[in-house]
Protein backbone atom coordinates (compact mmCIF):
# COMPACT_ATOMS: atom_id res chain seq x y z
CA UNK A 1 0.00 0.00 0.00
CA UNK A 2 1.14 3.50 -0.75
CA UNK A 3 2.54 5.19 2.35
CA UNK A 4 0.61 8.43 2.12
CA UNK A 5 -2.56 6.47 1.43
CA UNK A 6 -1.94 4.51 4.61
CA UNK A 7 -1.48 7.69 6.61
CA UNK A 8 -4.67 9.09 5.21
CA UNK A 9 -6.83 6.21 6.32
CA UNK A 10 -5.08 6.04 9.65
CA UNK A 11 -5.57 9.68 10.48
CA UNK A 12 -9.14 9.99 9.34
CA UNK A 13 -10.08 7.07 11.52
CA UNK A 14 -9.10 9.03 14.62
CA UNK A 15 -12.01 11.34 13.93
CA UNK A 16 -14.21 8.33 13.30
CA UNK A 17 -13.18 6.91 16.65
CA UNK A 18 -14.17 10.16 18.37
CA UNK A 19 -17.59 9.96 16.74
CA UNK A 20 -18.41 7.03 19.01
CA UNK A 21 -18.17 9.08 22.19
CA UNK A 22 -19.13 12.60 21.12
CA UNK A 23 -22.57 13.81 20.16
CA UNK A 24 -23.24 15.57 16.89
CA UNK A 25 -22.70 19.12 18.14
CA UNK A 26 -19.31 18.22 19.59
CA UNK A 27 -18.31 16.32 16.47
CA UNK A 28 -18.35 19.51 14.41
CA UNK A 29 -15.33 20.70 16.40
CA UNK A 30 -13.58 17.39 15.86
CA UNK A 31 -14.26 17.60 12.12
CA UNK A 32 -12.84 21.10 12.05
CA UNK A 33 -9.59 19.85 13.58
CA UNK A 34 -9.17 17.12 11.01
CA UNK A 35 -7.72 19.60 8.59
CA UNK A 36 -5.05 21.81 10.02
CA UNK A 37 -4.94 24.79 7.70
CA UNK A 38 -8.52 25.29 6.61
CA UNK A 39 -10.83 23.44 8.91
CA UNK A 40 -13.72 25.80 8.35
CA UNK A 41 -14.69 23.95 5.18
CA UNK A 42 -14.90 20.70 7.10
CA UNK A 43 -17.17 22.22 9.72
CA UNK A 44 -19.40 23.65 6.98
CA UNK A 45 -19.56 20.20 5.37
CA UNK A 46 -20.43 18.53 8.65
CA UNK A 47 -23.08 21.13 9.51
CA UNK A 48 -24.59 20.97 6.01
CA UNK A 49 -24.89 17.20 6.32
CA UNK A 50 -26.47 17.45 9.78
CA UNK A 51 -28.91 20.12 8.67
CA UNK A 52 -29.82 18.10 5.57
CA UNK A 53 -30.47 14.97 7.59
CA UNK A 54 -32.54 16.86 10.15
CA UNK A 55 -34.36 18.80 7.38
CA UNK A 56 -33.52 22.14 8.93
CA UNK A 57 -33.32 25.23 6.72
CA UNK A 58 -30.79 27.71 8.03
CA UNK A 59 -31.39 31.49 7.81
CA UNK A 60 -30.17 33.37 4.75
CA UNK A 61 -27.87 35.59 6.77
CA UNK A 62 -26.08 32.57 8.22
CA UNK A 63 -25.51 31.29 4.68
CA UNK A 64 -23.93 34.61 3.72
CA UNK A 65 -21.68 34.64 6.77
CA UNK A 66 -20.60 31.08 6.03
CA UNK A 67 -19.84 32.10 2.45
CA UNK A 68 -17.67 35.04 3.50
CA UNK A 69 -15.68 32.97 5.99
CA UNK A 70 -15.43 30.04 3.61
CA UNK A 71 -13.98 32.24 0.87
CA UNK A 72 -11.52 33.91 3.24
CA UNK A 73 -10.46 30.46 4.37
CA UNK A 74 -10.08 29.29 0.75
CA UNK A 75 -8.03 32.39 -0.04
CA UNK A 76 -5.51 31.87 2.74
CA UNK A 77 -5.23 28.23 1.88
CA UNK A 78 -4.65 28.79 -1.81
CA UNK A 79 -1.94 31.29 -0.92
CA UNK A 80 -0.37 28.75 1.43
CA UNK A 81 -0.32 26.16 -1.36
CA UNK A 82 1.27 28.68 -3.73
CA UNK A 83 3.87 29.57 -1.11
CA UNK A 84 4.73 25.88 -0.76
CA UNK A 85 5.01 25.52 -4.54
CA UNK A 86 7.24 28.58 -4.81
CA UNK A 87 9.39 27.18 -2.01
CA UNK A 88 9.77 23.96 -3.97
CA UNK A 89 10.81 26.02 -6.99
CA UNK A 90 13.45 27.70 -4.80
CA UNK A 91 11.79 31.00 -5.63
CA UNK A 92 11.93 32.36 -2.10
CA UNK A 93 10.80 35.92 -2.70
CA UNK A 94 7.60 34.73 -4.38
CA UNK A 95 7.04 32.31 -1.53
CA UNK A 96 7.47 35.10 1.02
CA UNK A 97 5.08 37.34 -0.92
CA UNK A 98 2.43 34.64 -0.67
CA UNK A 99 3.07 34.15 3.06
CA UNK A 100 2.77 37.91 3.64
CA UNK A 101 -0.58 38.13 1.90
CA UNK A 102 -1.79 35.05 3.72
CA UNK A 103 -0.85 36.66 7.02
CA UNK A 104 -3.06 39.65 6.17
CA UNK A 105 -6.01 37.36 5.51
CA UNK A 106 -5.43 35.52 8.77
CA UNK A 107 -5.53 38.89 10.50
CA UNK A 108 -8.84 39.68 8.85
CA UNK A 109 -10.21 36.35 10.05
CA UNK A 110 -8.90 37.07 13.54
CA UNK A 111 -10.62 40.44 13.62
CA UNK A 112 -13.90 39.02 12.32
CA UNK A 113 -14.19 35.82 14.33
CA UNK A 114 -11.59 35.88 17.08
CA UNK A 115 -9.66 32.94 15.67
CA UNK A 116 -7.13 32.69 12.90
CA UNK A 117 -7.40 29.27 11.31
CA UNK A 118 -9.74 27.02 13.21
CA UNK A 119 -12.63 29.40 13.45
CA UNK A 120 -15.20 27.53 15.62
CA UNK A 121 -17.84 29.66 13.91
CA UNK A 122 -20.00 27.08 12.21
CA UNK A 123 -22.56 25.35 14.42
CA UNK A 124 -25.39 23.06 13.34
CA UNK A 125 -28.28 25.33 12.42
CA UNK A 126 -26.29 28.46 11.54
CA UNK A 127 -23.27 30.34 12.76
CA UNK A 128 -22.08 31.19 16.26
CA UNK A 129 -22.11 34.97 16.01
CA UNK A 130 -22.80 37.73 13.53
CA UNK A 131 -20.02 39.70 11.85
CA UNK A 132 -19.59 43.28 13.01
CA UNK A 133 -20.45 45.57 10.04
CA UNK A 134 -17.78 48.13 10.97
CA UNK A 135 -15.02 45.53 11.14
CA UNK A 136 -16.35 44.05 7.92
CA UNK A 137 -15.92 47.42 6.18
CA UNK A 138 -12.35 47.74 7.41
CA UNK A 139 -11.65 44.20 6.31
CA UNK A 140 -12.82 44.99 2.81
CA UNK A 141 -10.26 47.82 2.61
CA UNK A 142 -7.58 45.42 3.78
CA UNK A 143 -8.80 42.88 1.25
CA UNK A 144 -8.32 45.40 -1.57
CA UNK A 145 -4.62 45.57 -0.72
CA UNK A 146 -4.39 41.79 -0.80
CA UNK A 147 -6.17 41.65 -4.14
CA UNK A 148 -3.71 44.10 -5.68
CA UNK A 149 -0.82 42.00 -4.44
CA UNK A 150 -2.55 38.87 -5.77
CA UNK A 151 -2.62 40.48 -9.21
CA UNK A 152 1.15 41.04 -8.91
CA UNK A 153 1.68 37.40 -7.94
CA UNK A 154 -0.47 36.33 -10.86
CA UNK A 155 1.72 38.42 -13.18
CA UNK A 156 4.85 36.79 -11.80
CA UNK A 157 3.51 33.27 -12.26
CA UNK A 158 2.29 34.03 -15.77
CA UNK A 159 5.42 35.84 -16.99
CA UNK A 160 8.47 34.86 -15.01
CA UNK A 161 10.72 32.79 -17.23
CA UNK A 162 12.08 30.61 -14.42
CA UNK A 163 8.62 29.67 -13.19
CA UNK A 164 7.50 28.91 -16.72
CA UNK A 165 10.53 26.75 -17.42
CA UNK A 166 9.92 24.64 -14.33
CA UNK A 167 6.15 24.34 -14.56
CA UNK A 168 5.11 24.39 -18.21
CA UNK A 169 4.41 20.97 -19.70
CA UNK A 170 5.07 19.17 -16.42
CA UNK A 171 2.59 16.53 -15.23
CA UNK A 172 0.10 17.11 -18.03
CA UNK A 173 -3.39 15.80 -17.41
CA UNK A 174 -5.45 15.64 -20.60
CA UNK A 175 -9.03 16.87 -20.50
CA UNK A 176 -10.46 13.43 -21.37
CA UNK A 177 -8.40 11.79 -18.63
CA UNK A 178 -9.58 14.39 -16.12
CA UNK A 179 -13.21 13.91 -17.11
CA UNK A 180 -13.02 10.15 -16.80
CA UNK A 181 -11.43 10.14 -13.34
CA UNK A 182 -12.11 11.14 -9.77
CA UNK A 183 -9.91 14.25 -9.86
CA UNK A 184 -11.48 17.50 -8.63
CA UNK A 185 -10.31 20.96 -7.74
CA UNK A 186 -7.35 22.59 -9.52
CA UNK A 187 -6.47 19.27 -11.17
CA UNK A 188 -9.74 19.24 -13.05
CA UNK A 189 -10.05 23.00 -13.53
CA UNK A 190 -6.51 23.26 -14.88
CA UNK A 191 -7.45 20.77 -17.58
CA UNK A 192 -10.49 22.75 -18.67
CA UNK A 193 -13.17 20.78 -16.78
CA UNK A 194 -15.47 23.25 -15.08
CA UNK A 195 -16.72 21.23 -12.14
CA UNK A 196 -17.17 23.04 -8.87
CA UNK A 197 -19.58 22.17 -6.08
CA UNK A 198 -20.20 25.85 -5.43
CA UNK A 199 -22.05 26.07 -8.74
CA UNK A 200 -24.81 23.82 -7.42
CA UNK A 201 -25.64 26.13 -4.52
CA UNK A 202 -26.06 23.26 -2.05
CA UNK A 203 -24.38 25.31 0.65
CA UNK A 204 -23.58 28.96 1.15
CA UNK A 205 -25.06 31.81 -0.82
CA UNK A 206 -23.27 31.11 -4.10
CA UNK A 207 -26.54 30.88 -6.01
CA UNK A 208 -27.08 34.62 -5.55
CA UNK A 209 -23.52 35.62 -6.39
CA UNK A 210 -23.25 34.67 -10.11
CA UNK A 211 -20.52 32.18 -9.47
CA UNK A 212 -18.62 30.80 -12.49
CA UNK A 213 -15.62 28.52 -11.83
CA UNK A 214 -12.20 29.52 -13.18
CA UNK A 215 -10.67 27.16 -15.72
CA UNK A 216 -7.42 26.92 -17.64
CA UNK A 217 -6.68 24.81 -20.67
CA UNK A 218 -3.02 23.83 -20.24
CA UNK A 219 -3.50 20.83 -17.95
CA UNK A 220 0.06 21.20 -16.64
CA UNK A 221 1.45 22.48 -13.34
CA UNK A 222 1.50 26.06 -14.61
CA UNK A 223 -2.22 25.91 -15.43
CA UNK A 224 -2.99 24.55 -11.98
CA UNK A 225 -0.98 27.34 -10.32
CA UNK A 226 -2.85 29.88 -12.42
CA UNK A 227 -6.15 28.34 -11.28
CA UNK A 228 -5.05 28.76 -7.68
CA UNK A 229 -4.07 32.41 -7.93
CA UNK A 230 -7.10 33.25 -10.06
CA UNK A 231 -9.26 31.59 -7.42
CA UNK A 232 -7.73 33.87 -4.81
CA UNK A 233 -8.81 36.90 -6.85
CA UNK A 234 -12.23 35.40 -7.51
CA UNK A 235 -12.71 34.71 -3.78
CA UNK A 236 -12.02 38.36 -3.04
CA UNK A 237 -14.70 39.42 -5.50
CA UNK A 238 -17.18 36.91 -4.09
CA UNK A 239 -16.57 38.26 -0.58
CA UNK A 240 -17.23 41.80 -1.74
CA UNK A 241 -20.48 40.76 -3.40
CA UNK A 242 -21.57 38.75 -0.37
CA UNK A 243 -20.94 41.69 1.97
CA UNK A 244 -22.94 44.01 -0.28
CA UNK A 245 -25.90 41.63 -0.55
CA UNK A 246 -25.95 40.46 3.05
CA UNK A 247 -29.55 40.36 4.30
CA UNK A 248 -30.75 41.13 7.82
CA UNK A 249 -32.30 38.60 10.12
CA UNK A 250 -31.47 35.80 12.51
CA UNK A 251 -28.35 33.69 12.27
CA UNK A 252 -29.49 30.46 13.82
CA UNK A 253 -32.27 27.90 13.42
CA UNK A 254 -33.33 25.43 16.06
CA UNK A 255 -31.83 21.97 15.68
CA UNK A 256 -33.62 18.84 16.95
CA UNK A 257 -32.13 16.92 19.87
CA UNK A 258 -31.40 13.89 17.72
CA UNK A 259 -30.62 13.30 14.08
CA UNK A 260 -32.98 11.05 12.16
CA UNK A 261 -32.02 10.48 8.54
CA UNK A 262 -28.96 10.49 6.35
CA UNK A 263 -27.23 13.00 4.11
CA UNK A 264 -24.18 13.46 1.94
CA UNK A 265 -22.56 16.90 1.85
CA UNK A 266 -19.93 17.79 -0.71
CA UNK A 267 -17.91 20.93 -0.22
CA UNK A 268 -15.43 22.56 -2.57
CA UNK A 269 -12.06 23.02 -0.91
CA UNK A 270 -8.84 24.37 -2.48
CA UNK A 271 -7.73 20.83 -3.31
CA UNK A 272 -11.04 19.53 -4.57
CA UNK A 273 -14.24 18.13 -3.20
CA UNK A 274 -14.52 16.88 0.38
CA UNK A 275 -17.37 14.47 1.03
CA UNK A 276 -19.07 13.91 4.37
CA UNK A 277 -21.69 11.24 4.89
CA UNK A 278 -23.71 10.96 8.09
CA UNK A 279 -26.68 8.93 9.19
CA UNK A 280 -28.55 8.76 12.45
CA UNK A 281 -31.62 7.12 13.92
CA UNK A 282 -33.04 9.71 16.24
CA UNK A 283 -30.37 9.99 18.92
CA UNK A 284 -27.76 12.70 19.42
CA UNK A 285 -25.06 10.16 18.59
CA UNK A 286 -24.66 9.37 14.91
CA UNK A 287 -24.98 5.84 13.59
CA UNK A 288 -22.63 6.14 10.68
CA UNK A 289 -20.15 8.69 9.51
CA UNK A 290 -17.91 8.65 6.48
CA UNK A 291 -15.34 11.12 5.19
CA UNK A 292 -13.60 11.25 1.85
CA UNK A 293 -11.16 14.08 1.42
CA UNK A 294 -10.00 15.59 -1.85
CA UNK A 295 -6.47 14.27 -1.47
CA UNK A 296 -7.75 10.72 -1.49
CA UNK A 297 -9.65 11.07 -4.74
CA UNK A 298 -6.85 13.05 -6.41
CA UNK A 299 -4.32 10.40 -5.49
CA UNK A 300 -5.65 7.97 -8.08
CA UNK A 301 -4.78 10.27 -10.96
CA UNK A 302 -0.99 9.96 -10.63
CA UNK A 303 -0.63 7.16 -13.20
CA UNK A 304 -2.55 9.05 -15.90
CA UNK A 305 -0.25 12.05 -15.98
CA UNK A 306 2.23 12.69 -18.76
CA UNK A 307 5.80 13.88 -18.29
CA UNK A 308 6.27 12.86 -14.68
CA UNK A 309 9.86 12.77 -13.51
CA UNK A 310 11.33 12.28 -10.09
CA UNK A 311 12.43 15.88 -9.67
CA UNK A 312 8.98 17.13 -10.63
CA UNK A 313 6.97 14.77 -8.47
CA UNK A 314 6.85 17.16 -5.50
CA UNK A 315 5.56 19.97 -7.70
CA UNK A 316 2.93 17.74 -9.28
CA UNK A 317 1.69 16.53 -5.93
CA UNK A 318 1.53 20.06 -4.53
CA UNK A 319 -0.33 21.48 -7.52
CA UNK A 320 -2.79 18.59 -7.65
CA UNK A 321 -3.42 18.78 -3.91
CA UNK A 322 -2.08 15.38 -2.84
CA UNK A 323 -0.31 16.34 0.35
CA UNK A 324 -1.16 14.33 3.36
CA UNK A 325 1.09 16.40 5.60
CA UNK A 326 -1.17 19.41 5.34
CA UNK A 327 -4.47 17.62 5.42
CA UNK A 328 -6.49 14.68 6.57
CA UNK A 329 -5.66 14.28 10.16
Amino acid at each position, binding site marked *: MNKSMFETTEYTSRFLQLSEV*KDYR*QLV*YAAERMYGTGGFGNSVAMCTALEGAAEVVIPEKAQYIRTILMELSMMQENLLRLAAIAETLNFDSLSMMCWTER*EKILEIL*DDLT*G*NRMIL*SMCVPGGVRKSL*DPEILEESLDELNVVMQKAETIKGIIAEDSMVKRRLRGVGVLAKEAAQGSSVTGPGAKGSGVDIDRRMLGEYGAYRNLDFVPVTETGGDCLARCMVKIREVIQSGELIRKAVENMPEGSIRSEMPAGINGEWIAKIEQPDGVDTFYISGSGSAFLDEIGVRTAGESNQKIMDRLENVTLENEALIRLTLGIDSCLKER
Partner: protein
Amino acid sequence: MGVMKIGKSLMNSLFAEPETSKYPEGGLKLSKASRGSIVIDEEACTLCRLCGRRCPSGAIKPDRSQSRIMIDRMKCLVCGECVEECPEHALSMAREYVSPDPSVLVDVYRASARVGSDSVLQGIEMPPEEIVSSEEKIPAVSTKEVQRIKRKKKNKKKKKKRNKKRNKPN
Protein backbone atom coordinates in the same frame (compact mmCIF):
# COMPACT_ATOMS: atom_id res chain seq x y z
CA MET B 1 14.94 46.53 -16.83
CA GLY B 2 15.58 43.48 -14.70
CA VAL B 3 17.95 45.41 -12.47
CA MET B 4 15.32 48.11 -11.94
CA LYS B 5 12.81 45.48 -10.87
CA ILE B 6 15.22 43.86 -8.47
CA GLY B 7 16.18 47.25 -7.06
CA LYS B 8 12.56 48.19 -6.53
CA SER B 9 11.64 45.02 -4.65
CA LEU B 10 14.86 45.24 -2.67
CA MET B 11 14.04 48.77 -1.51
CA ASN B 12 10.48 47.72 -0.71
CA SER B 13 11.61 44.80 1.42
CA LEU B 14 14.31 46.85 3.15
CA PHE B 15 12.01 49.58 4.37
CA ALA B 16 8.77 47.70 4.88
CA GLU B 17 7.50 46.89 8.36
CA PRO B 18 7.48 43.20 9.25
CA GLU B 19 4.07 41.60 8.85
CA THR B 20 4.21 39.55 12.01
CA SER B 21 4.87 40.76 15.54
CA LYS B 22 7.46 39.44 17.93
CA TYR B 23 5.96 37.60 20.83
CA PRO B 24 6.51 37.79 23.80
CA GLU B 25 8.93 40.77 23.44
CA GLY B 26 6.51 42.84 21.39
CA GLY B 27 3.62 42.22 23.76
CA LEU B 28 0.31 40.58 23.07
CA LYS B 29 -2.01 42.22 20.57
CA LEU B 30 -5.57 41.03 21.05
CA SER B 31 -7.69 41.11 17.92
CA LYS B 32 -10.91 43.10 17.73
CA ALA B 33 -13.13 40.09 18.16
CA SER B 34 -10.83 38.14 20.45
CA ARG B 35 -12.61 35.48 22.44
CA GLY B 36 -10.29 35.80 25.39
CA SER B 37 -11.03 33.24 28.03
CA ILE B 38 -13.86 31.74 30.03
CA VAL B 39 -14.76 33.49 33.29
CA ILE B 40 -16.71 31.57 35.92
CA ASP B 41 -19.07 33.36 38.29
CA GLU B 42 -18.89 31.06 41.29
CA GLU B 43 -21.86 32.66 43.04
CA ALA B 44 -24.27 32.08 40.20
CA CYS B 45 -23.31 28.52 39.36
CA THR B 46 -25.77 25.90 40.62
CA LEU B 47 -23.60 22.95 39.55
CA CYS B 48 -26.22 21.70 37.16
CA ARG B 49 -23.47 20.09 35.02
CA LEU B 50 -24.98 21.09 31.68
CA CYS B 51 -21.79 22.85 30.59
CA GLY B 52 -19.75 19.73 31.24
CA ARG B 53 -22.06 17.65 29.09
CA ARG B 54 -21.93 20.11 26.24
CA CYS B 55 -18.19 20.84 26.21
CA PRO B 56 -16.60 19.21 23.15
CA SER B 57 -13.22 18.66 24.76
CA GLY B 58 -14.21 17.91 28.34
CA ALA B 59 -12.37 20.98 29.62
CA ILE B 60 -14.96 22.24 32.07
CA LYS B 61 -15.92 19.90 34.88
CA PRO B 62 -18.52 20.78 37.48
CA ASP B 63 -18.06 18.45 40.42
CA ARG B 64 -21.16 18.13 42.59
CA SER B 65 -19.77 15.93 45.32
CA GLN B 66 -17.06 18.45 46.16
CA SER B 67 -19.19 21.45 45.17
CA ARG B 68 -16.68 23.00 42.86
CA ILE B 69 -16.20 23.69 39.18
CA MET B 70 -12.92 23.11 37.38
CA ILE B 71 -11.65 24.28 34.04
CA ASP B 72 -8.61 22.94 32.25
CA ARG B 73 -7.33 25.93 30.31
CA MET B 74 -5.01 23.80 28.19
CA LYS B 75 -7.95 21.76 26.92
CA CYS B 76 -10.41 24.62 26.40
CA LEU B 77 -11.06 25.50 22.76
CA VAL B 78 -12.76 28.80 23.71
CA CYS B 79 -15.62 27.73 21.48
CA GLY B 80 -18.35 29.23 23.67
CA GLU B 81 -20.66 26.20 23.78
CA CYS B 82 -20.70 26.24 27.59
CA VAL B 83 -21.49 29.97 27.69
CA GLU B 84 -24.50 29.38 25.45
CA GLU B 85 -25.64 26.38 27.45
CA CYS B 86 -25.46 27.73 31.01
CA PRO B 87 -29.02 28.40 32.27
CA GLU B 88 -27.76 30.62 35.13
CA HIS B 89 -25.49 32.78 32.94
CA ALA B 90 -22.65 31.92 35.29
CA LEU B 91 -20.16 31.65 32.45
CA SER B 92 -18.97 34.44 30.20
CA MET B 93 -16.16 35.25 27.83
CA ALA B 94 -13.83 38.03 28.89
CA ARG B 95 -11.68 39.78 26.35
CA GLU B 96 -8.49 39.03 28.20
CA TYR B 97 -5.95 36.32 27.91
CA VAL B 98 -5.41 33.85 30.72
CA SER B 99 -2.16 32.17 29.96
CA PRO B 100 -2.59 28.42 30.31
CA ASP B 101 0.02 27.45 32.85
CA PRO B 102 1.12 23.93 31.99
CA SER B 103 2.19 23.23 35.56
CA VAL B 104 -1.36 23.82 36.85
CA LEU B 105 -3.62 21.07 35.63
CA VAL B 106 -6.96 22.70 36.32
CA ASP B 107 -8.25 25.97 37.71
CA VAL B 108 -10.63 25.13 40.54
CA TYR B 109 -13.48 27.41 41.60
CA ARG B 110 -15.58 26.66 44.66
CA ALA B 111 -19.18 27.01 43.66
CA SER B 112 -21.78 28.30 46.12
CA ALA B 113 -23.19 24.79 46.27
CA ARG B 114 -26.91 25.00 46.01
CA VAL B 115 -26.78 21.31 45.42
CA GLY B 116 -30.08 19.55 45.02
CA SER B 117 -32.20 22.69 45.06
CA ASP B 118 -32.76 22.40 41.34
CA SER B 119 -35.50 19.86 40.89
CA VAL B 120 -35.62 20.37 37.14
CA LEU B 121 -32.08 19.20 36.68
CA GLN B 122 -32.23 16.12 38.86
CA GLY B 123 -31.99 12.87 37.02
CA ILE B 124 -29.29 14.03 34.64
CA GLU B 125 -26.36 11.73 35.09
CA MET B 126 -22.82 12.58 34.14
CA PRO B 127 -20.80 9.73 32.73
CA PRO B 128 -18.50 8.67 35.59
CA GLU B 129 -15.28 9.16 33.65
CA GLU B 130 -16.11 12.85 33.27
CA ILE B 131 -15.72 13.53 36.99
CA VAL B 132 -12.03 13.41 37.71
CA SER B 133 -10.83 15.70 40.46
CA SER B 134 -7.43 17.31 40.14
CA GLU B 135 -5.92 15.15 42.88
CA GLU B 136 -6.89 11.97 41.10
CA LYS B 137 -5.32 13.07 37.81
CA ILE B 138 -3.42 10.25 36.26
CA PRO B 139 0.29 11.07 35.97
CA ALA B 140 1.51 11.63 32.44
CA VAL B 141 4.00 8.76 32.69
CA SER B 142 2.91 5.28 33.66
CA THR B 143 4.25 3.61 36.78
CA LYS B 144 6.35 1.24 34.71
CA GLU B 145 8.01 4.18 33.04
CA VAL B 146 8.65 5.86 36.39
CA GLN B 147 10.31 2.71 37.64
CA ARG B 148 12.43 2.55 34.52
CA ILE B 149 13.57 6.16 34.96
CA LYS B 150 14.39 5.54 38.65
CA ARG B 151 16.43 2.48 37.73
CA LYS B 152 18.35 4.52 35.18
CA LYS B 153 19.18 7.18 37.76
CA LYS B 154 20.37 4.52 40.21
CA ASN B 155 22.56 2.99 37.56
CA LYS B 156 24.05 6.37 36.77
CA LYS B 157 24.91 6.93 40.45
CA LYS B 158 26.53 3.51 40.63
CA LYS B 159 28.57 4.25 37.57
CA LYS B 160 29.74 7.55 39.04
CA LYS B 161 30.81 5.83 42.23
CA ARG B 162 32.64 3.21 40.25
CA ASN B 163 34.37 5.87 38.17
CA LYS B 164 35.38 7.78 41.28
CA LYS B 165 36.87 4.64 42.76
CA ARG B 166 38.77 3.96 39.59
CA ASN B 167 40.08 7.50 39.30
CA LYS B 168 41.32 7.59 42.89
CA PRO B 169 45.05 7.83 43.00
CA ASN B 170 46.54 4.92 44.91
